[in-house]
């Protein structure tokens, strides 16, 4: 179950895990160090962009040929996903959802689902393929959503959209008024409390939004790695590791879909809340 070089060099468990959890990080902007802010995780970025282009491109390809007549099975499937997302958004947001929020929800759901699904690929197969093409020390994290940068990027984008829609719906004055006068009332004495509450809310929203997804996917990956390590310890380890690995994979189907769904729902809820005034 371990990779080729693992058998050759005899990695220790911590080295094995550390290897699997290292990013393919390279400096940008003339920076040669692989630490600090000006560093790019090429594995995360490339995998997510390729997946995004693939899934959204597939849907676009079907949508381009969409007919109002009898749909093909392909179109029926895409319409099923469309209807599922549209129904969820319709129940939460009561404005003109078709111009922005519903398409955004579809993007988030499909893209995050695709990125999460990379967790189904056996960790050591990925490592084997990467070391076959990139050499013994090549690193490639295949699950973009187990990189905090990805989940933070999505959550922060939603956060900025939230503030944008909040200001757009209530005006800049209305938004500032709400910062100080909700939830306790407009008495100047409770302004600090209100502002503190809103501050906590604005900080906690992107944090919980991103860390929930990151935590689930990261934990899932770690468990796969631990099972992979166990499988390398002998025959009984291989048998139990395989059985538990299969079980965890099946359970992980639920987590992958559920986390994508939760991430989409929170996106819709945050954007819908931004439109409501208190």
């Amino acid at each position, binding site marked *: 179950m371990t990779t080729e070089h693992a058998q050759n060099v005899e990695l220790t468990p911590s080295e094995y895990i550390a290897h699997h959890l290292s990013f393919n990080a390279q400096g940008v902007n003339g920076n040669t160090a692989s630490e600090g802010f000006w560093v790019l995780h090429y594995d995360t970025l490339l995998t997510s*962009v390729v997946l995004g282009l693939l899934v959204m491109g597939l849907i*676009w390809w079907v*949508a381009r040929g969409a007919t*109002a007549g009898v749909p093909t099975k392909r179109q029926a499937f895409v319409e099923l996903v469309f209807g599922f997302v549209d129904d969820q958004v319709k129940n939460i947001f009561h404005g003109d959802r078709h111009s922005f929020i519903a398409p955004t929800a579809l993007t988030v759901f499909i893209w995050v689902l695709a990125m999460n699904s990379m967790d189904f690929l056996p960790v050591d197969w990925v490592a084997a393929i990467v070391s076959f093409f990139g050499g013994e020390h090549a690193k490639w994290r295949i699950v973009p959503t187990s990189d905090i940068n990805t989940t933070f990027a*999505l959550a922060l984008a939603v956060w900025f959209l939230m503030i944008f829609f909040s200001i757009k719906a209530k005006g800049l004055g209305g938004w500032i008024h709400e910062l100080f006068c909700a939830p306790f009332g407009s008495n100047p004495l409770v302004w600090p409390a209100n502002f503190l509450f809103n501050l906590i809310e604005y900080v906690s929203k992107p944090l919980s939004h991103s860390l929930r997804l990151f935590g689930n996917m990261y934990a899932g990956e770690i468990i796969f790695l631990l099972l992979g390590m166990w499988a390398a310890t002998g025959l009984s380890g291989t048998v139990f590791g395989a059985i538990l690995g299969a079980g965890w994979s099946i359970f992980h189907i639920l987590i992958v879909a559920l986390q994508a769904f939760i991430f989409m729902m929170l996106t819709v809820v945050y954007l819908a809340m931004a439109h409501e005034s208190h």
Partner: protein
Amino acid sequence: MNINFTLIAQAIAFAVLIWFTVKFVWPPLLTAIETRQKEIADGLAAAQEGKSALEVAAKKSEATLNEAKQKATEIIGQAEKRAAQIIDEAKGNAKAEGDRIIAGAKAEIDQEVNRAKEGLRAQVSTLAVAGAEKILRKEIDAKAHSEMLAKLAAEL
């Protein structure tokens, strides 16, 4: 956990994907689905309309049929009445004609009888005069007794 430039790159990728979906993926799907929904709704409404139209037509045809039946019965009744009338008229006419013919025949018979009587009367008087002439010959003056004879003839 190391936050770095990947975050910004991923955010840009996210923004581009959202833009792509908003612009190119969502609208054609929405149009297709909404158009189909409208077509199905229209079709169902048309079917309902057709059904009610069929019902109305059935009712109308039944009413027309009933009316035609009633009219036919009426016409047959009228025809029967007229036929009876014609027969009655013909009967009356025939009776009148028969009466007329019988009356004409009776009048002719009376005429014939009268004529025969006249003839007989004339002959009786002549015969009586001739007989009396033969019996009486000389004693009887033809001129003196002709008056009496005429009276006799008239009594006949």
